[in-house]
């Protein structure tokens, strides 16, 4: 048992074939330890998102190994990957990706329901988490009635409610202004410190990087530099 939550071992990812092949990742190796707040940074198209997708089991590498909690993801079936994401990971997307027909509280509850948790506990936990992200008042509104910053906080709440080991966020601040970005980052930092949740963020926003404990810089699918904060 290592202390690593994620290990990448010479991972490559090639999209397409022949002349149009794009080498999104060209043999990267990295570890992410428990309790870290890691930012993956670099210009767009450098492979940040690909790296996150591979770690989240949404995509599989062309070669190399992705290990999450000492388990090789290539041995997982689709449904096992789903369960891994459901119980051990939380996702936050650039475009929030909330379910538009559900209220904020129901969006958060949704994950718990997939986990098979009873109604009363679901409701209590969802409201607790929303409270912790500062949205107790907005629990019963639908995504369309919330501002961008609020939506993203609902998305964070949804990602956190299952008590994940790892929270993955892909450009979470891209659609937010600097004030809300700062609020979001403080929220993530407090979660990281309070619960020890490992956080992995892809971003090119220096504001976000300031909150990290370590940054991994990608360029053209290769790791250029790792900077401990």
């Amino acid at each position, binding site marked *: 048992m290592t202390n690593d939550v994620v290990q990448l071992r010479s991972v490559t990812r090639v999209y397409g074939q022949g002349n149009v092949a794009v080498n999104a990742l060209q043999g990267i190796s990295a570890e992410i330890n428990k309790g870290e707040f890691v930012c993956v940074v670099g210009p767009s198209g450098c492979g940040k*998102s690909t790296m996150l997708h591979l770690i989240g089991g*949404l*995509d599989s590498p062309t070669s190399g190994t992705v290990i999450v909690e000492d388990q090789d993801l290539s041995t997982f079936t689709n449904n096992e990957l*789903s369960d891994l*994401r459901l119980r051990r990971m939380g*996702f936050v997307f650039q475009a929030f990706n909330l379910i*538009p*027909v559900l209220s904020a509280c129901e969006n958060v509850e949704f994950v718990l*329901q997939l986990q098979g948790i009873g109604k009363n506990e679901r409701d209590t936990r969802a409201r607790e988490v929303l409270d912790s992200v500062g949205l107790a008042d907005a629990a019963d509104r639908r995504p369309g009635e919330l501002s961008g910053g609020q939506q993203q906080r609902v998305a964070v709440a949804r990602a956190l409610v299952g008590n994940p080991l790892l929270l993955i966020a892909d450009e979470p601040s891209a659609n937010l202004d600097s004030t809300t970005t700062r609020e979001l980052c403080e929220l993530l930092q407090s979660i990281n410190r309070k619960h020890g949740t490992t956080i992995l963020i892809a971003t090119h926003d220096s504001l976000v990087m300031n909150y990290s404990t370590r940054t991994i810089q990608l360029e053209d699918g290769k790791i250029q530099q790792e900077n401990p904060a």
Partner: protein
Amino acid sequence: MLSVKVAWRNLWRNRRRTLLTAGAVGFAVLLVQLGMSFQAGSYEPMVEVSTRFASGHLQIQHVDYKDDPRTERFVSNTTELRSHLLDLPGINAVSNRTESFGLVNKDERSYGALVVGVDPQIDPSASHFSDQVTQGTYFDSPNSAIIGSALARNLRVSVGDEIVILSTDVDGSVAFIAPSVSGIFETGNDALDRSLVQVPRSLINDALMLEDSAHRVVIMIDQPMLPEQSSEVITPLVPSTASLLDWRELMPEISQSIRLDKISNGIVYGTLTVIVVLSIANTFVMTMFERTREFGTLRAVGMHNRSIFGMFITETILMWMLGVAIGYLLSTCALLPLINIGIGMDSMGMDQFAGLLFLPDRIYPAVDLKVVLVAPISIGVGMVLSTMLASIRLYRLSLVDALRYRE
């Protein structure tokens, strides 16, 4: 369940599209239901009217009589046979009839006609003739006759006149009877009114030396649309030289037109269903395109493919239920007022043919399980298949592409 809730809300996310799709389902359900209920409702009365003017529901006759009717091809001891038949379950009337082709004479005039000998006390339970007498009465003595209106006009016969009917007896010798006309009937069917004479069976049987025999033992049953059930019960009583025929064999034109009608309507309903299902499939494909990213998100938060498909199917089923409800509502509104009063043949301009084609005066829609279920089930199956077809693409798409769709 949350997923039903999500599915339900998803439907209302695009209210117009949902209503149009459900409307298409409702439209098809309504049309098929109306069509089928009137069809189903017309068959039995049509059979009932035609059997009461002619064949009855079932007949026992000599094995060769149907193909080549001859006087000597009869069934004997019919009074006894009748009482045995009446003891059987599901049988409500039995009437023995003797038939012979005869030359009907009045003074110098003569016309050919079918002479049918009936038991005046019994036959009205199996036929409509007693109700069709428009002048005089239905048999007033053992030596009387009722005669078709056109034949009466052509023979210049009126009620009370004596007519002479010449025929051949079982041995082939000439036989004659001379009844007096007690009544003139008018059925509206030209063939019957022009060439049918009814006399008491005792009268013609004496003349033809047929004793207690008959050419047709006409049986009326409780369930005319299911004659095979009664056939099973009756068969043991059928004499060895006779056979049992049901109305479908006796009046092939009626059962064939019913079958032809069912087939051609089936094709029409089938095409309608295919068109509706195709336009629904088209809508589903559009919906699925729009929901690509939602699909990706659901997978990313850890939902299984199976559960997501379950949600799509739930949406489809809800939409189907909505459509079927609309269809049922409309067809109930349309049928409810008609179920008791029916549609008169006159309103369809068909009254003038009612007699010619043995049509009933009114048609009442008949709603049975088949009428209620056929359209909804076939459309439902089509919708579920469409959902599958439309969602195949999502399962083929990589999750990364799904999440990035149109970003």
